[in-house]
Protein backbone atom coordinates (compact mmCIF):
# COMPACT_ATOMS: atom_id res chain seq x y z
CA UNK A 1 0.00 0.00 0.00
CA UNK A 2 1.26 3.50 -0.80
CA UNK A 3 2.28 5.70 2.11
CA UNK A 4 1.01 8.85 0.38
CA UNK A 5 -2.12 10.52 1.63
CA UNK A 6 -1.98 8.64 4.93
CA UNK A 7 -0.01 11.07 7.09
CA UNK A 8 -0.89 14.62 8.10
CA UNK A 9 0.79 17.62 9.60
CA UNK A 10 -1.40 18.45 12.59
CA UNK A 11 0.76 20.92 14.46
CA UNK A 12 3.12 23.63 13.27
CA UNK A 13 4.93 26.41 15.07
CA UNK A 14 7.46 28.96 13.97
CA UNK A 15 9.33 30.58 16.82
CA UNK A 16 8.95 34.36 16.49
CA UNK A 17 12.53 34.98 17.66
CA UNK A 18 14.96 36.35 15.10
CA UNK A 19 17.67 37.32 17.57
CA UNK A 20 17.68 35.51 20.89
CA UNK A 21 20.96 35.96 22.79
CA UNK A 22 19.03 35.19 25.97
CA UNK A 23 18.08 31.69 24.82
CA UNK A 24 19.93 28.47 24.01
CA UNK A 25 19.40 26.51 20.80
CA UNK A 26 17.95 23.63 22.83
CA UNK A 27 15.54 26.06 24.47
CA UNK A 28 14.38 27.12 21.01
CA UNK A 29 13.81 23.43 20.18
CA UNK A 30 11.78 23.00 23.36
CA UNK A 31 9.75 26.20 22.99
CA UNK A 32 9.02 25.30 19.38
CA UNK A 33 7.98 21.76 20.38
CA UNK A 34 5.61 23.28 22.96
CA UNK A 35 4.14 25.59 20.34
CA UNK A 36 3.56 22.83 17.79
CA UNK A 37 2.06 20.42 20.33
CA UNK A 38 -0.30 23.13 21.63
CA UNK A 39 -1.24 23.89 18.04
CA UNK A 40 -2.04 20.20 17.49
CA UNK A 41 -3.89 19.79 20.79
CA UNK A 42 -1.49 17.02 21.79
CA UNK A 43 0.92 16.68 24.70
CA UNK A 44 4.59 15.82 24.96
CA UNK A 45 3.50 12.43 26.33
CA UNK A 46 1.87 11.62 22.98
CA UNK A 47 5.20 11.88 21.11
CA UNK A 48 6.79 8.56 20.19
CA UNK A 49 8.84 9.63 17.17
CA UNK A 50 11.58 12.29 17.33
CA UNK A 51 13.17 13.95 14.31
CA UNK A 52 15.78 16.67 14.28
CA UNK A 53 18.93 17.93 12.61
CA UNK A 54 21.66 20.50 13.15
CA UNK A 55 22.41 19.29 16.66
CA UNK A 56 25.77 17.58 16.22
CA UNK A 57 26.64 14.02 15.22
CA UNK A 58 24.63 12.23 17.93
CA UNK A 59 22.88 15.34 19.19
CA UNK A 60 19.43 13.79 18.86
CA UNK A 61 20.30 11.83 21.99
CA UNK A 62 20.99 15.12 23.77
CA UNK A 63 17.72 16.54 22.47
CA UNK A 64 15.80 13.48 23.74
CA UNK A 65 17.59 13.98 27.07
CA UNK A 66 16.77 17.70 27.12
CA UNK A 67 13.09 17.07 26.38
CA UNK A 68 13.11 13.95 28.61
CA UNK A 69 11.67 11.93 25.73
CA UNK A 70 12.07 8.20 25.19
CA UNK A 71 10.67 7.77 21.68
CA UNK A 72 10.55 4.43 19.89
CA UNK A 73 11.60 6.04 16.60
CA UNK A 74 14.56 8.40 16.08
CA UNK A 75 15.74 10.11 12.91
CA UNK A 76 18.49 12.72 12.77
CA UNK A 77 18.82 12.87 9.03
CA UNK A 78 21.60 15.37 8.29
CA UNK A 79 21.58 16.49 4.66
CA UNK A 80 21.70 20.22 5.34
CA UNK A 81 18.83 22.67 5.35
CA UNK A 82 16.52 20.27 3.55
CA UNK A 83 16.75 17.76 6.41
CA UNK A 84 13.45 18.81 7.95
CA UNK A 85 11.54 18.28 4.71
CA UNK A 86 13.16 14.88 4.60
CA UNK A 87 12.01 14.25 8.17
CA UNK A 88 8.42 14.70 7.02
CA UNK A 89 8.93 12.14 4.26
CA UNK A 90 10.53 9.72 6.73
CA UNK A 91 7.80 10.37 9.31
CA UNK A 92 5.15 9.60 6.69
CA UNK A 93 6.84 6.26 6.01
CA UNK A 94 7.33 5.48 9.69
CA UNK A 95 3.75 6.36 10.65
CA UNK A 96 2.29 4.43 7.71
CA UNK A 97 4.44 1.44 8.69
CA UNK A 98 3.28 1.62 12.30
CA UNK A 99 6.77 2.39 13.62
CA UNK A 100 5.54 5.44 15.50
CA UNK A 101 2.22 7.24 15.90
CA UNK A 102 3.03 10.88 16.72
CA UNK A 103 6.15 12.37 15.16
CA UNK A 104 7.74 15.55 16.51
CA UNK A 105 10.19 17.43 14.27
CA UNK A 106 12.13 20.22 15.94
CA UNK A 107 14.75 22.80 15.03
CA UNK A 108 16.55 25.49 16.98
CA UNK A 109 19.57 27.65 16.26
CA UNK A 110 21.30 30.67 17.74
CA UNK A 111 23.52 31.22 14.69
CA UNK A 112 23.08 35.00 14.76
CA UNK A 113 23.70 35.57 18.46
CA UNK A 114 26.74 33.27 18.26
CA UNK A 115 27.96 35.37 15.31
CA UNK A 116 28.38 32.27 13.17
CA UNK A 117 29.40 33.45 9.67
CA UNK A 118 27.67 30.56 7.93
CA UNK A 119 27.98 31.62 4.32
CA UNK A 120 31.41 33.23 4.37
CA UNK A 121 33.20 31.60 7.27
CA UNK A 122 34.60 28.59 5.49
CA UNK A 123 36.11 25.80 7.53
CA UNK A 124 34.44 24.04 10.40
CA UNK A 125 33.90 21.00 8.25
CA UNK A 126 35.45 17.56 8.36
CA UNK A 127 37.94 16.65 5.64
CA UNK A 128 36.00 13.90 3.89
CA UNK A 129 37.50 12.58 0.63
CA UNK A 130 35.94 15.15 -1.73
CA UNK A 131 36.77 18.01 0.65
CA UNK A 132 40.49 17.46 0.11
CA UNK A 133 39.99 18.51 -3.50
CA UNK A 134 37.87 21.58 -2.69
CA UNK A 135 38.54 23.06 0.75
CA UNK A 136 42.15 24.08 -0.03
CA UNK A 137 40.76 26.51 -2.65
CA UNK A 138 38.41 28.42 -0.35
CA UNK A 139 34.86 27.61 -1.45
CA UNK A 140 32.53 29.57 0.85
CA UNK A 141 28.89 28.56 0.81
CA UNK A 142 28.06 31.76 -1.08
CA UNK A 143 30.89 30.95 -3.48
CA UNK A 144 29.55 27.48 -4.17
CA UNK A 145 26.15 28.90 -5.17
CA UNK A 146 27.87 31.71 -7.07
CA UNK A 147 29.60 29.14 -9.29
CA UNK A 148 26.15 27.94 -10.35
CA UNK A 149 24.94 31.51 -10.91
CA UNK A 150 27.95 32.41 -13.06
CA UNK A 151 27.54 29.29 -15.20
CA UNK A 152 23.80 29.88 -15.55
CA UNK A 153 24.47 33.43 -16.75
CA UNK A 154 27.00 32.11 -19.25
CA UNK A 155 24.76 29.39 -20.66
CA UNK A 156 21.47 31.25 -20.72
CA UNK A 157 22.15 34.96 -20.46
CA UNK A 158 20.54 35.21 -17.05
CA UNK A 159 21.22 38.65 -15.57
CA UNK A 160 21.91 40.12 -12.13
CA UNK A 161 18.74 42.19 -12.62
CA UNK A 162 16.70 38.99 -12.98
CA UNK A 163 18.23 37.56 -9.81
CA UNK A 164 17.61 40.84 -8.01
CA UNK A 165 13.95 40.76 -8.94
CA UNK A 166 13.58 37.55 -6.93
CA UNK A 167 14.97 39.28 -3.83
CA UNK A 168 12.63 42.23 -4.42
CA UNK A 169 9.55 40.01 -4.73
CA UNK A 170 10.36 38.00 -1.63
CA UNK A 171 10.97 41.23 0.32
CA UNK A 172 7.53 42.43 -0.75
CA UNK A 173 6.12 39.26 0.77
CA UNK A 174 8.09 39.83 3.98
CA UNK A 175 6.55 43.28 4.31
CA UNK A 176 3.25 41.44 4.94
CA UNK A 177 4.73 39.15 7.60
CA UNK A 178 4.85 40.79 11.05
CA UNK A 179 7.56 38.33 12.18
CA UNK A 180 9.88 38.85 9.20
CA UNK A 181 13.27 40.30 10.09
CA UNK A 182 13.54 42.59 7.06
CA UNK A 183 10.27 44.24 6.02
CA UNK A 184 11.26 47.45 4.25
CA UNK A 185 10.74 47.21 0.49
CA UNK A 186 13.84 47.10 -1.72
CA UNK A 187 14.38 47.72 -5.41
CA UNK A 188 16.40 45.99 -8.10
CA UNK A 189 18.78 48.94 -7.88
CA UNK A 190 19.22 48.37 -4.13
CA UNK A 191 20.22 44.76 -4.75
CA UNK A 192 22.67 45.69 -7.51
CA UNK A 193 24.14 48.48 -5.36
CA UNK A 194 24.72 46.18 -2.39
CA UNK A 195 28.28 44.92 -2.16
CA UNK A 196 29.39 41.83 -4.04
CA UNK A 197 29.99 38.93 -1.65
CA UNK A 198 31.04 36.39 -4.26
CA UNK A 199 30.48 37.38 -7.86
CA UNK A 200 27.90 37.51 -9.31
CA UNK A 201 26.00 37.40 -5.98
CA UNK A 202 25.44 40.62 -4.04
CA UNK A 203 24.68 40.93 -0.34
CA UNK A 204 20.95 41.22 -1.06
CA UNK A 205 21.07 38.07 -3.21
CA UNK A 206 21.97 36.21 0.00
CA UNK A 207 19.83 34.97 2.84
CA UNK A 208 20.36 36.49 6.24
CA UNK A 209 21.75 34.86 9.37
CA UNK A 210 19.19 34.89 12.19
CA UNK A 211 18.34 32.90 15.26
CA UNK A 212 15.19 30.85 15.23
CA UNK A 213 13.33 27.65 15.81
CA UNK A 214 10.39 25.68 14.58
CA UNK A 215 8.53 22.44 15.08
CA UNK A 216 6.03 20.16 13.36
CA UNK A 217 3.76 17.41 14.66
CA UNK A 218 2.66 14.64 12.31
CA UNK A 219 0.32 11.71 12.79
CA UNK A 220 -1.86 9.36 10.76
CA UNK A 221 -4.61 10.94 8.69
CA UNK A 222 -7.05 8.78 10.59
CA UNK A 223 -6.03 10.16 13.98
CA UNK A 224 -5.71 13.66 12.50
CA UNK A 225 -9.45 13.79 11.87
CA UNK A 226 -10.07 13.97 15.64
CA UNK A 227 -7.57 16.76 16.26
CA UNK A 228 -8.00 20.51 16.58
CA UNK A 229 -6.54 21.68 13.27
CA UNK A 230 -7.52 20.86 9.69
CA UNK A 231 -5.02 18.16 8.71
CA UNK A 232 -2.49 18.98 6.01
CA UNK A 233 -1.81 15.80 4.09
CA UNK A 234 1.52 14.59 2.71
CA UNK A 235 0.57 13.75 -0.88
CA UNK A 236 4.00 12.72 -2.13
CA UNK A 237 7.68 13.40 -1.56
CA UNK A 238 11.10 12.42 -2.85
CA UNK A 239 14.75 12.95 -2.02
CA UNK A 240 17.79 13.34 -4.23
CA UNK A 241 21.48 14.17 -4.08
CA UNK A 242 23.76 15.83 -6.62
CA UNK A 243 27.55 16.02 -6.50
CA UNK A 244 30.67 16.23 -8.61
CA UNK A 245 30.61 12.48 -9.24
CA UNK A 246 33.75 11.33 -11.01
CA UNK A 247 34.50 14.72 -12.47
CA UNK A 248 32.08 15.96 -15.12
CA UNK A 249 29.11 17.49 -13.35
CA UNK A 250 26.87 19.95 -15.18
CA UNK A 251 26.63 22.74 -12.56
CA UNK A 252 23.15 23.89 -13.51
CA UNK A 253 21.76 20.38 -13.06
CA UNK A 254 20.68 20.22 -9.44
CA UNK A 255 19.07 17.60 -7.22
CA UNK A 256 15.59 19.06 -7.73
CA UNK A 257 15.69 17.73 -11.31
CA UNK A 258 15.39 14.24 -9.81
CA UNK A 259 13.28 14.82 -6.69
CA UNK A 260 10.72 17.17 -8.27
CA UNK A 261 9.23 14.94 -10.97
CA UNK A 262 9.34 11.92 -8.65
CA UNK A 263 7.49 13.74 -5.88
CA UNK A 264 4.85 15.00 -8.33
CA UNK A 265 4.43 11.51 -9.77
CA UNK A 266 4.05 10.00 -6.30
CA UNK A 267 1.42 12.61 -5.47
CA UNK A 268 -0.36 12.11 -8.79
CA UNK A 269 -0.14 15.85 -9.43
CA UNK A 270 1.00 18.16 -12.22
CA UNK A 271 2.74 21.50 -12.04
CA UNK A 272 -0.44 23.46 -12.63
CA UNK A 273 -2.02 21.82 -9.61
CA UNK A 274 0.43 23.70 -7.38
CA UNK A 275 -1.07 26.85 -5.81
CA UNK A 276 1.93 28.00 -3.77
CA UNK A 277 5.59 27.01 -3.70
CA UNK A 278 7.98 27.14 -0.78
CA UNK A 279 11.44 26.99 -2.29
CA UNK A 280 14.61 27.17 -0.23
CA UNK A 281 15.95 30.66 -0.98
CA UNK A 282 19.44 30.53 0.44
CA UNK A 283 20.32 32.76 -2.51
CA UNK A 284 18.32 34.24 -5.36
CA UNK A 285 19.98 31.82 -7.77
CA UNK A 286 18.72 28.91 -5.67
CA UNK A 287 15.12 29.92 -6.38
CA UNK A 288 15.76 30.39 -10.09
CA UNK A 289 17.51 27.07 -10.74
CA UNK A 290 15.19 25.17 -8.42
CA UNK A 291 12.06 26.32 -10.28
CA UNK A 292 13.73 25.28 -13.54
CA UNK A 293 14.84 21.93 -12.19
CA UNK A 294 11.42 21.21 -10.70
CA UNK A 295 10.03 21.72 -14.20
CA UNK A 296 7.98 24.88 -13.69
CA UNK A 297 9.86 26.28 -16.68
CA UNK A 298 12.48 25.08 -19.13
CA UNK A 299 16.21 25.26 -18.37
CA UNK A 300 17.35 28.82 -18.99
CA UNK A 301 13.88 30.32 -18.65
CA UNK A 302 14.07 30.82 -14.88
CA UNK A 303 15.02 34.47 -15.11
CA UNK A 304 12.05 35.34 -17.29
CA UNK A 305 9.78 33.05 -15.29
CA UNK A 306 10.53 34.87 -12.03
CA UNK A 307 9.94 38.30 -13.58
CA UNK A 308 6.82 40.36 -13.91
CA UNK A 309 5.24 39.26 -10.66
CA UNK A 310 4.72 35.63 -11.60
CA UNK A 311 6.25 34.39 -8.33
CA UNK A 312 4.68 37.19 -6.28
CA UNK A 313 1.44 37.10 -4.32
CA UNK A 314 -1.34 37.26 -6.90
CA UNK A 315 0.95 35.77 -9.55
CA UNK A 316 0.65 32.40 -11.25
CA UNK A 317 2.99 30.72 -8.77
CA UNK A 318 3.51 32.62 -5.52
CA UNK A 319 6.88 31.63 -4.00
CA UNK A 320 7.79 32.06 -0.34
CA UNK A 321 4.92 34.29 0.76
CA UNK A 322 6.41 34.49 4.27
CA UNK A 323 9.52 36.29 3.03
CA UNK A 324 11.76 33.24 3.01
CA UNK A 325 15.36 33.11 4.11
CA UNK A 326 16.09 36.22 2.11
CA UNK A 327 13.86 38.41 4.30
CA UNK A 328 12.06 36.54 7.12
CA UNK A 329 14.52 34.28 8.91
CA UNK A 330 17.44 31.96 8.26
CA UNK A 331 19.06 30.37 11.29
CA UNK A 332 21.26 28.16 9.09
CA UNK A 333 18.97 25.29 8.07
CA UNK A 334 15.65 26.65 6.92
CA UNK A 335 13.78 23.57 5.66
CA UNK A 336 11.36 23.40 8.57
CA UNK A 337 10.06 26.90 7.89
CA UNK A 338 9.15 25.93 4.32
CA UNK A 339 6.88 23.23 5.70
CA UNK A 340 5.46 25.49 8.43
CA UNK A 341 4.55 28.23 5.94
CA UNK A 342 3.06 25.68 3.54
CA UNK A 343 0.93 24.43 6.43
CA UNK A 344 -0.22 27.96 7.33
CA UNK A 345 -1.07 28.68 3.70
CA UNK A 346 -3.06 25.46 3.26
CA UNK A 347 -4.93 26.11 6.49
CA UNK A 348 -5.87 29.53 5.17
CA UNK A 349 -4.19 31.03 8.24
CA UNK A 350 -1.46 33.11 6.64
CA UNK A 351 -3.07 36.49 7.26
CA UNK A 352 -2.18 39.36 4.94
CA UNK A 353 0.05 37.14 2.84
CA UNK A 354 -2.51 34.39 2.29
CA UNK A 355 -2.53 32.86 -1.19
CA UNK A 356 -6.20 32.73 -2.12
CA UNK A 357 -7.74 29.23 -2.14
CA UNK A 358 -4.42 27.45 -1.67
CA UNK A 359 -5.15 23.74 -1.87
CA UNK A 360 -1.81 22.27 -2.95
CA UNK A 361 1.63 23.45 -1.83
CA UNK A 362 4.98 22.35 -3.17
CA UNK A 363 7.92 22.45 -0.78
CA UNK A 364 11.48 22.07 -1.98
CA UNK A 365 14.41 22.06 0.40
CA UNK A 366 18.02 22.32 -0.71
CA UNK A 367 20.79 21.32 1.65
CA UNK A 368 24.54 21.68 1.40
CA UNK A 369 26.56 23.38 -1.31
CA UNK A 370 24.78 23.79 -4.65
CA UNK A 371 27.99 23.90 -6.67
CA UNK A 372 29.41 20.88 -4.85
CA UNK A 373 27.42 18.30 -2.88
CA UNK A 374 23.82 19.04 -2.07
CA UNK A 375 20.52 17.38 -1.30
CA UNK A 376 17.11 18.19 -2.68
CA UNK A 377 13.86 17.13 -1.08
CA UNK A 378 10.51 17.87 -2.73
CA UNK A 379 7.18 17.40 -0.97
CA UNK A 380 3.60 18.00 -2.05
CA UNK A 381 1.13 18.95 0.67
CA UNK A 382 -2.63 19.25 0.37
CA UNK A 383 -5.63 20.44 2.27
CA UNK A 384 -7.40 17.26 3.29
Amino acid at each position, binding site marked *: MSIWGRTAIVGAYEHPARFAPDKTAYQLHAESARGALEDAGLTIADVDGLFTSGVGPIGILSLANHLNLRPCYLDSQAIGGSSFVSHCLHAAAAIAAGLCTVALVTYGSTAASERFAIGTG*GGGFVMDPPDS*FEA*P*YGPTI*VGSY*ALVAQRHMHEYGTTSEQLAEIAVTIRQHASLNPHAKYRDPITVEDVLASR*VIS*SPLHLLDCCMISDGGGALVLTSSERARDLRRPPITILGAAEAVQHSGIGARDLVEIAARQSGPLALQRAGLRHDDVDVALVYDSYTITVLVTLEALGFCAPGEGGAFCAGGRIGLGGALPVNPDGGGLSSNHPGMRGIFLVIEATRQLRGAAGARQVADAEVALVHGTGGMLGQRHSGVTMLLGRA
Partner: protein
Amino acid sequence: MAETKAYRKPLPRVDEESRGFWEALARHELYFQRCRDCGTKRLYPRALCTKCLSSATEWVRASGRGLVYSFTVTHQNQSPGFREEIPYVLAIVELEEGLRLMTNVVGCAPDAVRIGMPVQAVFEDVTPEVTLLKFRP
Protein backbone atom coordinates in the same frame (compact mmCIF):
# COMPACT_ATOMS: atom_id res chain seq x y z
CA MET B 1 64.83 31.02 1.55
CA ALA B 2 62.58 29.38 4.10
CA GLU B 3 59.00 30.60 4.10
CA THR B 4 58.49 32.15 7.51
CA LYS B 5 54.78 32.84 7.33
CA ALA B 6 52.81 29.76 8.43
CA TYR B 7 50.38 28.35 5.89
CA ARG B 8 46.90 28.76 7.37
CA LYS B 9 44.48 27.43 4.75
CA PRO B 10 43.02 23.92 4.97
CA LEU B 11 45.34 21.21 3.70
CA PRO B 12 44.18 18.09 1.90
CA ARG B 13 44.26 14.76 3.69
CA VAL B 14 46.77 12.68 1.77
CA ASP B 15 45.55 9.12 2.20
CA GLU B 16 45.90 5.66 0.65
CA GLU B 17 43.33 6.41 -2.04
CA SER B 18 44.74 9.75 -3.11
CA ARG B 19 48.48 9.49 -2.43
CA GLY B 20 49.42 8.93 -6.07
CA PHE B 21 47.67 12.14 -7.07
CA TRP B 22 49.41 14.24 -4.43
CA GLU B 23 52.82 12.66 -5.06
CA ALA B 24 52.46 13.54 -8.74
CA LEU B 25 51.56 17.12 -7.90
CA ALA B 26 54.68 17.31 -5.72
CA ARG B 27 56.64 16.40 -8.91
CA HIS B 28 54.64 19.14 -10.67
CA GLU B 29 52.73 16.61 -12.76
CA LEU B 30 48.97 16.15 -12.99
CA TYR B 31 47.55 12.62 -13.10
CA PHE B 32 44.00 11.27 -13.11
CA GLN B 33 42.81 7.70 -12.82
CA ARG B 34 41.41 5.33 -15.43
CA CYS B 35 39.80 1.95 -14.83
CA ARG B 36 41.86 -0.84 -16.41
CA ASP B 37 38.72 -2.95 -16.87
CA CYS B 38 36.12 -0.54 -18.32
CA GLY B 39 38.24 2.50 -19.20
CA THR B 40 36.18 5.01 -17.19
CA LYS B 41 38.20 8.07 -16.21
CA ARG B 42 37.81 9.51 -12.73
CA LEU B 43 38.84 12.47 -10.65
CA TYR B 44 39.14 12.99 -7.67
CA PRO B 45 41.08 9.77 -7.12
CA ARG B 46 39.54 6.81 -5.33
CA ALA B 47 40.33 3.09 -5.04
CA LEU B 48 37.37 1.65 -6.96
CA CYS B 49 35.88 2.45 -10.34
CA THR B 50 32.40 3.82 -9.65
CA LYS B 51 31.02 2.27 -12.85
CA CYS B 52 32.19 -1.34 -12.61
CA LEU B 53 33.63 -1.35 -9.06
CA SER B 54 36.93 -2.73 -10.32
CA SER B 55 40.04 -2.08 -8.25
CA ALA B 56 42.30 -2.29 -11.30
CA THR B 57 43.42 1.30 -11.77
CA GLU B 58 45.98 3.07 -13.91
CA TRP B 59 47.23 6.61 -13.54
CA VAL B 60 47.15 8.75 -16.67
CA ARG B 61 49.03 11.99 -17.07
CA ALA B 62 46.95 15.02 -18.02
CA SER B 63 48.22 17.78 -20.27
CA GLY B 64 47.50 20.45 -17.67
CA ARG B 65 45.59 22.50 -20.22
CA GLY B 66 41.96 23.35 -19.68
CA LEU B 67 39.16 25.90 -19.88
CA VAL B 68 37.43 27.83 -17.11
CA TYR B 69 34.02 26.14 -16.71
CA SER B 70 32.77 28.48 -13.99
CA PHE B 71 34.25 30.88 -11.46
CA THR B 72 33.46 33.36 -8.72
CA VAL B 73 35.49 36.27 -7.41
CA THR B 74 35.35 35.82 -3.65
CA HIS B 75 35.13 39.14 -1.82
CA GLN B 76 34.28 37.82 1.63
CA ASN B 77 35.75 34.86 3.51
CA GLN B 78 36.46 35.21 7.20
CA SER B 79 38.59 32.09 7.50
CA PRO B 80 42.33 32.32 8.11
CA GLY B 81 44.54 32.28 5.05
CA PHE B 82 41.76 33.32 2.71
CA ARG B 83 40.72 36.58 4.30
CA GLU B 84 44.20 37.95 3.64
CA GLU B 85 43.91 37.10 -0.08
CA ILE B 86 40.56 38.65 -0.91
CA PRO B 87 39.58 39.04 -3.68
CA TYR B 88 40.53 35.61 -5.00
CA VAL B 89 39.11 33.47 -7.80
CA LEU B 90 37.45 30.15 -6.99
CA ALA B 91 36.89 28.22 -10.21
CA ILE B 92 35.88 24.98 -11.82
CA VAL B 93 38.28 24.12 -14.64
CA GLU B 94 37.53 21.55 -17.30
CA LEU B 95 40.68 19.70 -18.30
CA GLU B 96 41.39 18.92 -21.93
CA GLU B 97 40.68 15.30 -20.97
CA GLY B 98 37.08 16.22 -20.05
CA LEU B 99 37.36 16.11 -16.27
CA ARG B 100 36.32 19.08 -14.12
CA LEU B 101 37.88 20.10 -10.83
CA MET B 102 37.72 22.88 -8.29
CA THR B 103 40.72 25.18 -8.17
CA ASN B 104 41.92 28.77 -8.01
CA VAL B 105 42.75 30.84 -11.06
CA VAL B 106 45.89 32.83 -10.26
CA GLY B 107 48.35 34.98 -12.13
CA CYS B 108 45.83 37.47 -13.51
CA ALA B 109 43.49 40.15 -12.26
CA PRO B 110 40.38 38.49 -10.76
CA ASP B 111 38.15 40.63 -12.95
CA ALA B 112 39.91 39.36 -16.08
CA VAL B 113 38.69 35.78 -15.60
CA ARG B 114 35.99 34.59 -18.01
CA ILE B 115 34.17 31.32 -18.59
CA GLY B 116 35.79 29.55 -21.53
CA MET B 117 39.17 31.18 -20.91
CA PRO B 118 42.09 28.82 -21.66
CA VAL B 119 44.19 28.08 -18.61
CA GLN B 120 47.30 26.11 -17.79
CA ALA B 121 48.15 24.15 -14.63
CA VAL B 122 50.54 25.68 -12.13
CA PHE B 123 51.88 23.75 -9.18
CA GLU B 124 52.06 25.60 -5.90
CA ASP B 125 54.25 24.03 -3.21
CA VAL B 126 52.33 25.32 -0.20
CA THR B 127 54.12 23.23 2.45
CA PRO B 128 57.11 20.88 2.28
CA GLU B 129 54.63 17.99 1.95
CA VAL B 130 51.76 19.42 -0.08
CA THR B 131 51.56 20.86 -3.57
CA LEU B 132 48.27 22.31 -4.80
CA LEU B 133 47.05 22.39 -8.38
CA LYS B 134 46.05 25.85 -9.55
CA PHE B 135 45.62 27.40 -12.98
CA ARG B 136 46.76 30.55 -14.75
CA PRO B 137 45.86 32.02 -18.12
